[in-house]
């Protein structure tokens, strides 16, 4: 509904100054055909972004179901079985349905514009990558209504529980297969676009930081999405075809699943974090009016984080019983990741240092990101210490930690990205007052929701429980109030976006932020086809010089 109402691309505009030497008959597609048969990177990017927003609202409603139940001790609204389905689906939907597709959508929309390419490398495959997502989401939603309900063993799908659920688990497994195939195709597309289709003069070490993080993220995805697919396939064959990968009765081992899952799962953490780093690295230099500090070290830090992310997986499972040597190895490797991450944080701060800063909404979200992501990073360091983790494992401290990096990290960067590029997408400026209100509202209620969870975890409250002892009441009540207010604020975000699409506070200039990257060289709104002839080298070099890369 909202996708068809979205006049992001004015079909007729912006073509007069481009040479047409090939067939553009897909221009004439209107109505639903334009979206179902979409091969244009901007259309597909738009689809991805709206899809992820719909999933964000779905997963958010589930989170509110969780917080409503936890407002007071005792069972109010749900039976424990359904509560467990809520926590599981909330996790799966937010990770695979909201955050990941949102970043793929951003990459689709922005990479060709930023790199000076006419479109993504494989336009038809791009269509497939997107259109596998809605059926996957549908399978997850349907699974709530099958006998036995949806998967309820947590988003990590650990056996033996995941071997015992009803068909809801099978639907979740198929959904993950689809999501995995979609991710792999999307990644192949993004990597190929970045490596093969850059404008003349833009070497790899001169790409915008967002392109670098997209490149590395998608390498991670090609490497680990198949591992998850393998793991859930093993679950499936254990459930129905008599294999014993994870069944102790037949000589299998449930702990093996945890190893395979987290071999995927830890790089997955960076698949959600690295593109956020990229977005912030575009926004901060723009609003500090200084080139990004330490561009090369940013690239190397991103690559180091990606490589290290393959060597830390067992820190998610310190409590399964591992030789001390293994615990020490995973503990030290985990701590090592703090070094490149620290390099990034210091680079962002150094970029702002003595800059001529202004605080439009994208910048607010970027600075908010730097502050709160760092909090999440530090609680991650606390958890990396094996003996501490043994105490904190599966408590609310962990919940607080990963919501600081995923909500205040990935999600805030996405909000920042939307406000930053909305003028380019729609041709209209958003309301700065409304944007600022959205930021401060989210900032306050996010902390009200998640900060008390640190205390709950330290006091020993386990995650994934529908009921809890009385002493946890106060902090849970505070967190629940925060969650409902935070959720309400996101409807205001939807209003902001729609208001901007409908005309906002007026037309946006081609380069409202005076930013030197290439996407701002095309008119606003970005015409349906851009860079059909690559930008000439002088234009590329001008932008690079302004970023101190030339």
């Amino acid at each position, binding site marked *: 509904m909202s996708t068809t109402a979205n006049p992001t691309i004015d079909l007729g505009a912006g073509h007069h100054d481009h040479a047409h*030497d090939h067939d553009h008959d897909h221009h004439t597609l209107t109505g639903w055909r334009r979206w179902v048969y979409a091969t244009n990177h901007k259309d597909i990017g738009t689809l991805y972004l709206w899809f992820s927003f719909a999933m964000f609202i779905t997963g958010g409603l589930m989170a509110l179901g969780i917080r409503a139940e936890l407002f007071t001790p005792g069972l109010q609204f749900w039976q424990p079985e359904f509560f467990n389905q809520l926590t599981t689906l909330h996790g799966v939907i937010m990770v695979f349905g909201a955050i990941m597709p949102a970043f793929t959508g951003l990459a689709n929309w922005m990479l060709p514009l930023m790199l000076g390419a006419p479109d993504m*490398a*494989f336009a038809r495959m791009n269509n497939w990558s997107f259109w596998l997502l809605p059926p996957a989401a549908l399978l997850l939603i349907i699974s709530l209504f099958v006998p036995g309900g949806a998967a309820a063993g947590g988003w990590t799908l650990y056996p033996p529980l995941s071997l015992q659920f009803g068909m809801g688990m099978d639907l979740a497994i198929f959904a993950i297969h689809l999501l995995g195939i979609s991710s*792999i195709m999307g*990644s*192949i*597309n993004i*990597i*190929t676009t970045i*490596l*093969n*289709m850059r404008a003349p003069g833009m070497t790899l070490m001169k790409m915008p930081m967002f392109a670098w993080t997209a490149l590395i993220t998608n390498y991670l995805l*090609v*490497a*680990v*999405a*198949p*591992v*998850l*697919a*393998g*793991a859930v396939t*093993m679950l499936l064959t254990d459930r129905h075809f008599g294999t014993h*990968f994870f*069944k*102790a*009765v*037949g*000589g*299998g*081992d*449930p*702990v*093996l699943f945890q*190893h*395979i899952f987290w*071999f995927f799962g830890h790089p997955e953490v960076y698949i959600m974090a690295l593109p956020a780093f990229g977005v912030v690295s575009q926004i901060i230099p723009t609003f500090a009016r200084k080139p990004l500090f330490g561009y090369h070290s940013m690239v190397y830090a991103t690559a180091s984080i990606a490589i290290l992310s393959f060597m830390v997986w067992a820190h998610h499972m310190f409590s399964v*019983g*591992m*030789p001390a*040597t*293994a615990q020490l190895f995973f503990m030290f490797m985990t701590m090592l990741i703090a070094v490149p991450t620290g390099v990034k944080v210091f680079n962002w701060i150094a970029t702002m240092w003595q800059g001529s800063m202004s605080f439009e909404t994208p910048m607010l979200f970027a600075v908010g990101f730097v502050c709160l992501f760092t909090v999440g990073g530090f609680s991650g360091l606390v958890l990396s210490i094996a003996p501490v983790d043994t105490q904190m494992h599966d408590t609310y401290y962990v919940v607080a930690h990963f919501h600081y990096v995923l909500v205040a990290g990935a999600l805030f960067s996405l909000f920042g990205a939307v406000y930053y590029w909305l003028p380019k997408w729609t041709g209209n400026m958003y309301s700065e007052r409304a944007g600022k209100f959205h930021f401060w509202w989210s900032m306050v209620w996010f902390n009200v929701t998640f900060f008390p969870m640190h205390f709950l975890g330290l006091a020993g409250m386990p995650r994934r429980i529908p009921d809890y002892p009385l002493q946890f009441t106060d902090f849970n009540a505070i967190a629940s109030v925060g969650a409902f207010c935070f959720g309400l604020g996101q409807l205001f975000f939807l209003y902001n976006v729609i208001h901007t699409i409908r005309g906002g506070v007026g037309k946006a200039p081609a380069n409202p932020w005076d930013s030197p990257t290439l996407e701002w060289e095309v008119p606003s709104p970005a015409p349906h086809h851009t860079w059909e002839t690559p930008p000439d080298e002088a234009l590329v070099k001008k932008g690079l010089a302004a970023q101190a890369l030339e």
Partner: protein
Amino acid sequence: MTAATLALTQQRANRRLAIKLAVVAALMVGFAYGMVPFYNVFCEALGVDRARPELADTHAAAMRVEFDSNVAAGLPARLTALEPVTAGRAGGLIKAKFRLENLSDAPLGIRAVPSYAPERAGRFLQKLECFCFNALTLAPRETREVTVVLLVEADMPPELGAVTLSYMLYPLEENPHGEGKA
């Protein structure tokens, strides 16, 4: 080169890269399955305690026995269970080996004091033979293998599940406190 041939070269290069990446993805599915045998080998090499089919078999009452070993403060000795976790069946025998080391350059007289958790498990585990029966004297730097043979009583209640058997080494000349429980 004309624009058309340029586009064609580009297309070919794109396709080549896509195929390479797809091959990597396919290999990574294989990697996931490859982790299965690798995990088995790795656990064996490191002596990691695994989930065991004999314990998963619920038809016969089984008992998981874990050995814990400690040394009194300041005693220059080391006691290591060679198989820290094992399983026994009602009516069956469990044989466990320990490595006992004297870390000093002087002869060392020690006594091992056993204890059980949960305590009621003690009734269902009979020691037929134990290095804790006698005081032991180790030569300087001596390493010795010692054994324990346990009989699991046939009337062991199946819900008992697991028991930890702990040995604490004390020097001979001191009168060990808390002895007599086992």
